[in-house]
């Protein structure tokens, strides 16, 4: 016999109530864990992909769309920009580095990006097989593309027009794979990289004069902080192009999504609050049922502190069990959500644990103690004589 057996027996004797309280709390905790897991990993994903990109220059349109399209490869381009005009910007003294991007084609739903190797260097990519592209129509595949489509060095494929798999095919221009990249944990894993000229040749604008050549956008790295003030204004007012800052647009996006997260958080707090109340009520009602148990245990030599401790342990086992269940359910939920592969969920996994979850566990222990404090105090104050003589 020990405290654990005693507390466990009491919890088991009111199994339905115990389950109700555990599940109720676990619902709230599940939501919290979901927010923490998804939020933290999205944050990491967002910041790892914008690393080294201070500004994106694209065709006029929604700046958020430019960022989503050119940095995260999730949205469609706003249009094209003139190569000459873009090159003028890249030669500006405040620009340290610029990377051209030409989009427009895809293969089996994976985007083909015309760029130069500095784009791969931006994410410190290295090759697991083959070499970098040297000539037109040579392609280096991202690790996920290669894995999903079973592509290897030497394979050939025809690209489809547009960024979805149902566009018309460019049958006459076959790409061939010359290299496969190692996994980087960035958007690069989902892309097929080639040079800009390949995109032009597929679209048969190779023959056109230089002055009409176009690219989709350009990623820019500033030379110094002053550029953050001067460059966007310069580009937006003196050219037909538009400048968009990844940091600014993403924080704008978060503000928009933030309302949803706030609602979820509010819901979680309400759920946790209700379950705390429910744990308190369960213990408080148990006091009535156990009037005689408590008195007889005191008669058999139990100290006040032992009864107090038993009650506190009962409350905190409920909250801790609920939290453990909630954490497990939160991870399972993320796991299920990411089982369906998509660009939005890529890089998010249910298999990581964050420090916040340890805090949740510690917090739930505290919550259990707080909820059981009043019932425990009452239990420890049981008047043996009155209870046992008063029948």
């Amino acid at each position, binding site marked *: 016999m020990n405290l654990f*057996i*005693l507390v466990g027996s009491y919890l088991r004797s009111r199994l339905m109530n115990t389950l109700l309280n555990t599940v109720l709390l676990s619902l709230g905790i599940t939501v919290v864990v979901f927010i923490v897991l998804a939020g933290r990993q999205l944050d990491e994903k967002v910041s790892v992909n914008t690393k080294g990109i201070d500004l994106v220059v694209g065709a006029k349109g929604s700046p958020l769309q430019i960022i989503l399209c050119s940095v995260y490869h999730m949205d469609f381009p706003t249009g094209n920009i003139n190569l000459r005009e873009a090159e003028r910007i890249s030669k500006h003294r405040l620009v340290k580095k610029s990377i051209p991007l030409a989009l427009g084609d895809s293969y089996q739903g994976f985007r083909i990006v015309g760029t130069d190797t500095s784009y791969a260097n931006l994410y410190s990519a290295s090759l697991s097989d083959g070499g970098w592209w040297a000539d037109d129509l040579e392609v280096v595949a991202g690790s996920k593309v290669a894995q999903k489509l079973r592509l290897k060095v030497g394979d050939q494929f025809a690209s489809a027009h547009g960024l979805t798999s149902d566009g018309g095919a460019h049958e006459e221009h076959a790409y061939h794979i010359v290299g496969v990249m190692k996994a980087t944990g960035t958007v690069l894993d989902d892309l097929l990289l080639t040079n800009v000229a390949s995109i032009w040749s597929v679209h048969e604008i190779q023959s056109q004069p230089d002055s009409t050549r176009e690219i989709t956008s350009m990623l820019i790295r500033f030379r110094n902080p002053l550029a953050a003030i001067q460059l966007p204004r310069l580009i937006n007012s003196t050219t037909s192009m538009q400048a968009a800052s990844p940091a600014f647009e993403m924080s704008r996006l978060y503000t928009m999504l933030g309302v949803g997260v706030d609602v979820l958080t509010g819901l979680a707090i309400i759920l946790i609050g209700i379950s705390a109340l429910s744990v308190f009520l369960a213990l408080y009602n148990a006091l009535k049922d156990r009037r005689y148990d408590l008195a007889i*245990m005191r*008669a*058999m*030599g139990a100290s006040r502190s032992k009864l107090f401790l038993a009650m506190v342990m009962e409350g905190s086992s409920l909250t801790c069990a609920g939290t453990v269940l909630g954490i497990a359910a939160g991870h399972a939920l993320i796991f299920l959500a990411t089982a369906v592969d998509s660009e939005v969920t890529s890089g998010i996994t249910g298999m990581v644990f964050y420090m916040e979850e340890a805090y949740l566990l510690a917090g739930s222990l505290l919550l259990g103690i707080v909820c059981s404090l009043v019932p425990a105090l009452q239990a420890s104050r049981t008047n043996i*004589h009155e209870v046992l*003589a008063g029948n």
Partner: protein
Amino acid sequence: MVEVKDLSFTYPNGKSLAFGDFSIQKGQHSLLLGDSGSGKTTLLHLLGGLLRGYSGLIKIDHSELSELSDALLDKFRGKHCGFIFQKLHLVKALNVRRNLVLSSWLAGMRAEEEWLTTALEKLNIKDKADADVNTLSQGQAQRVAIARAVLNRPALILADEPTSALDDRNCEDVLKLLIDVASEAGSTLIIATHDQRLKSRIGSQIQIGR
């Protein structure tokens, strides 16, 4: 074993009870007799350390109860006293064995497995050792309560109206069992009762409330 002198107790509502002096030797099973409301239960609770704040003297096993701190009194009670109440108050969440072991654990002792088995055997409920207490008959439950009281081999077993709800035959049985196992455990039995049937069985009688 038990020595009571100049004992009186005042209830919170001002009502006061005085008890005559008496003493009980080790092994001298005794009855506390008196009508309902005469203070039998109060005296029993005073003797068992369930109720404090008396004036006078109560010595149990050479300890003056009023001199013990609350914490020490809890320990003293667990080690030296076993209780049997008219309502049995078994802990419903625990099975029979755990109900018994609970009393040892709360007293800060280890249950003697052998004695536990012997006691259950003597009380004829050995096959119920792992039963849910909610499935026991009244008679079986009473035997469990007796086993619980004797398990720690307390110096004193205090019983409050243990037989008043029983018919003549069961009363006879229970009393016999109670005396048997109490003697076996080396405990002195004190029964507070107004049950006239017990008078012929236990010679040492203390009258209260005259």
